[in-house]
């Protein structure tokens, strides 16, 4: 619970180490194998908010799925807190682009899902769920089914569901991609607010440049397929960030630079297909 500061927080400890990780998908029907991710080496510091920016099909989601353990790297290894990642686990919470709330569970039970799997006693579980319902402003929707919620509300619940589990790293795969612009802005502020309070290590995949800058303390730009990291920028905008920062000169300068980086890749990706 660090108080908001104007200087970037210290990133002394590396939380997540990715060493020479690549992913090649085997060929289907006599085609060529697909090199989704070139050997990538990357270190993510504790409490860092990293956004991974890239055109569609650049392997950014592949990288995230490898970290989550939902996919296995072809080469290399991934270490979380010094321990190798082998398969998915509750220490790496994930929010997906598609709506993945369990449709048969109420909002409250969705948030409690991971705690239940852990075998946490009911009173403690209820306390944490109530806390998260407040954090995402959905207290009065606790007994609603996902189908009765808007897309934004569903993704808020999905974030709460992942964070209630208290993971070491929070992974988000274009979580706001399907939302309208206004809702998306509000969701960014909500997520950033949560991060400014808890300083959880976050890796956030997006193709939206503004989103990548606004949220991040560090932006990684990925190249078109085969994907690799081609730029690594710190974002030293002060916290707490207000949405008005999006019109500041510093923000615009970063945006101009990243637009250039991304444009080259987008052109390459477009030519490649």
């Amino acid at each position, binding site marked *: 619970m660090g108080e908001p500061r104007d200087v970037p927080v210290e990133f002394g400890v590396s939380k997540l180490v990715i060493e020479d990780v690549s992913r090649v998908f085997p060929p289907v029907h006599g085609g060529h194998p697909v090199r989704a991710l070139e050997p990538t080496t990357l270190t993510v510091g504790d409490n860092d908010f990293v956004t991974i920016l890239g055109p569609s099909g650049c392997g950014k989601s592949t990288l995230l799925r490898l970290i989550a353990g939902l996919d296995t790297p072809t080469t290399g290894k991934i270490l979380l807190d010094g321990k190798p990642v082998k398969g998915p686990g509750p220490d790496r919470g994930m929010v997906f682009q598609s709506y993945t709330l*369990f449709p048969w569970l109420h909002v409250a039970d969705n948030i409690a899902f991971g705690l239940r799997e852990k075998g946490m006693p009911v009173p403690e579980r209820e306390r944490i769920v109530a806390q998260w319902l407040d954090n995402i402003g959905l207290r009065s929707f606790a007994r609603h089914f996902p189908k009765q919620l808007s897309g934004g509300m569903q993704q808020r619940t999905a974030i709460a569901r992942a964070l209630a589990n208290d993971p070491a790293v929070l992974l988000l795969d274009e979580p706001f991609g399907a939302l309208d612009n206004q809702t998306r802005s509000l969701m960014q502020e909500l997520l950033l607010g949560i991060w400014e309070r808890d300083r959880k290590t976050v890796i956030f995949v997006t193709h939206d440049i503004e989103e990548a800058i606004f949220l991040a303390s560090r932006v990684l730009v990925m190249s078109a397929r085969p994907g690799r990291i081609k730029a690594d920028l710190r974002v030293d905008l002060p916290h707490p960030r207000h949405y008005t920062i999006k019109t500041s000169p510093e923000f615009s300068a970063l945006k101009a630079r990243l637009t250039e980086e991304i444009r080259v890749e987008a052109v390459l990706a477009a030519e490649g297909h």
Partner: protein
Amino acid sequence: MKPLAPISSGARIALGILFFVLFVAGWAYATFGGFVSKTFLADPLTMLEEGWLLLTKHGFLYDIGITIWRVVGGFTLAALVAVPLGILMGAYKPIEAFLEPFVSFARYLPASAFIPLLILWAGIGELQKLLVIFIGSVFQIVLMVAVTVSAVRRDLVEAALTLGARDRGILVRVLIPASAPDIAEILRLVLGWAWTYVIVAELIGSSSGIGHMIIDSQALLATGQIIFGIIVIGVIGLISDFLFKWANRAMFPWSLA
């Protein structure tokens, strides 16, 4: 009429009833008008009269009760075996690889063709009737449940994995609840088929039940009774279908829009 355009519930009910009215009217026209011999097709009034006599004088209610018990009994046995098996097949690919080819073959075996064999094995008692329905239903349920379970959205399973669910948690708290409404719908469908098997089972080697009454009536050329028996089956089927739908709605409110 526009494609897929909805209609009001009043209009839906009225149109549904209209078809029944037209159907009975056509039947009445053919029989009262003398276009069809009374020997082969009774008119609607005779059918009602004979049906009333069946119910009041010939203990037809008992036959109805027996038939319902056979359907429900055989179907319940089949569901108790088939639903867990189907879930395991859908969830675990080795089990699927082991059982799927045989079940796919077995479900094309006509249940009615087993009747002579079942009479040899189990006699002409209740067990034989239950087994006909069991054989007719069990393989269908297994296969359809297996398909439903293996089609559970993969991203829900992945979400559960990242929340710390392990094998058992995935099965019990994701795959089963996710497919439960579809499984209930499968049971409703197969129960409808079970009704056709029971009558076949009762046509041969039986001394009670709706099917037995129908065979008896054939010897007497009592076509009114036969039609009454057929209509009773239809009405019971309609009621059980309605009850099933109602129960599914009550149990799975989340699956409705």
